[in-house]
């Protein structure tokens, strides 16, 4: 009141000091209020806690998922977007070494929160990302990924740990049953020679690839149903994956049970059967070759099939088998 009176009654000496004081006080209060509101709003909109939480939680889950072979599927529900400071779900990215959480979209996010995990040697971690309130983290056979739904009918191969160093002392045996597969065999031998596998005289043979002509329209990858069934099955699966990914004739795997050729879906003829019998007899009689197994790749009688592509598919599968992804 006194100030207001002083403002309009200019005859009061000294009253302007009080006025100046009050003005400065109001300015100070205004500045403090603005700073407070900005600070609280910044805190309210800060999503760093949830990004940190999700990266840690999903990273630890990824660690647990990679403990053992076997399938692992987890449905992970995020907090409702409306309850998050950013009002939208974060973008969660899975890489081979870590889980990263960004404010969606990732390209506009400044700093992600990350959490490392140790991938199993027999598993391939697919670079994947999601922006959703429900995340499905899955490890099925050799594929580890995150998505918004569980993978269905995915062609995956068993996640056995078959990693082994390949060098001059590791060799691969390539046998052809007929002349039609000879170009593919030559191409495959050339690739092995280029990579230096088996160049040492005392090299140990790890796998034998038998190339033959199939009596069907598709590629048959045949492997034995013996003690090496697991590892040979994995190799066959990888070769079939490579063929199917190359947009060529469809490939499928088949087990071979000795003395049951009629019931096998292998349709092996006598020549192919003899090759297998000769090989298996040689291997079983030599204790040094106990870890060796065979895989028969039966190609359809189709001149359009490129021998180079066949050789490349087999060599790529071989490297995926022996070298950890």
């Amino acid at each position, binding site marked *: 009141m006194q100030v207001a009176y002083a403002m309009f009654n200019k005859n009061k000496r000294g009253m302007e*000091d009080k006025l100046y004081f009050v003005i400065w006080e109001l300015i100070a209060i205004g500045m403090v209020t603005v700073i407070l509101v900005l600070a609280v709003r910044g805190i309210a909109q800060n999503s760093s806690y949830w990004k940190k939480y999700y990266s840690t939680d999903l990273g630890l889950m990824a660690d647990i998922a990679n*403990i053992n072979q076997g399938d692992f599927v987890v449905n992970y529900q995020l907090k409702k977007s409306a309850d998050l400071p950013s009002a939208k779900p974060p973008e969660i990215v899975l890489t081979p070494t870590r889980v990263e959480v960004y404010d969606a979209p990732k390209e506009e996010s400044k700093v992600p929160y990350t959490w490392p995990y140790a991938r199993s040697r027999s598993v391939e971690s697919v670079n994947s990302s999601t922006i959703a309130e429900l995340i499905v983290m899955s490890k099925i056979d050799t594929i580890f990924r995150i998505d918004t739904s569980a993978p269905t009918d995915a062609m995956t191969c068993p996640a056995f740990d078959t*990693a082994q160093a390949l060098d001059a002392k590791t060799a691969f045996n390539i046998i052809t049953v007929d002349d039609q597969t000879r170009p593919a065999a030559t191409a495959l031998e050339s690739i092995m020679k280029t990579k230096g596998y088996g160049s040492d005289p005392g090299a140990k043979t790890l796998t034998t690839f038998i190339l033959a002509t199939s009596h069907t329209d598709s590629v048959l990858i045949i492997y034995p149903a013996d003690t090496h069934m697991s590892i040979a099955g994995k190799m066959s699966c990888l070769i079939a994956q490579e063929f199917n990914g190359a947009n060529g004739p469809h490939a499928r795997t088949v087990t071979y049970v000795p003395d049951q050729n009629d019931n096998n879906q292998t349709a092996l003829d006598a020549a192919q059967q003899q090759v297998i019998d000769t090989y298996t007899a040689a291997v079983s009689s030599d204790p040094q070759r106990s870890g060796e197994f065979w895989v028969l790749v039966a190609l359809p009688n189709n001149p359009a099939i490129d021998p180079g592509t066949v050789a490349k598919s087999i060599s790529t599968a071989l490297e995926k088998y022996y070298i950890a992804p």
Partner: protein
Amino acid sequence: MKKKPLFRRNLARKGQVKYMLENAFRIFFLMAALLAFFLLISYYINNRIDTRLIQAETLANRIVYSDTIMQQDPTLFRTYAGIVNLEKINDTLIEQSLSYTPTRHAAAKIKIISKPQSTGTEVFIKEAYLNRKQFNDFYVMIRSGIQGSESAIQAVKKFPVTCYDKDISPPASPYYYCTLVVEVMIPNT
């Protein structure tokens, strides 16, 4: 009366100190209220998540239940958790199986000792490390009592297991009882 220009006014007048003193309490109380407001908000905002113990548990269980050191059937690839293959107790194999990037994220020592003897003593058999250098660095810091973001916590877990030593030839059995000690180091940040 002619008004003096502002810059010529004498602001050092009598009575102003009394005025300031009278308002000092008001200003002080205002500052205290603002400070309390900030402290209250800061107290209830929690941005810290301490997962060190669960990290230690996860790493220790990963070592114990995976095929890192446990015996695995070469044909079926079945892992026998509880049977330690002594051939796998070496730094290289362990780091190939548990590869963290960055290596500072976790470090561990895996030690095999005999089962407690009748005298109460235990015989050392074998040990290996995950990220040996990092483990030793953290160990020195912990032993020195250094705390803070550069230091770590240590968790020790013991498991009674069966050891498989392929170098033992018959008639002795390659399987015998032993104790697995897993010491895990988790950094504070």
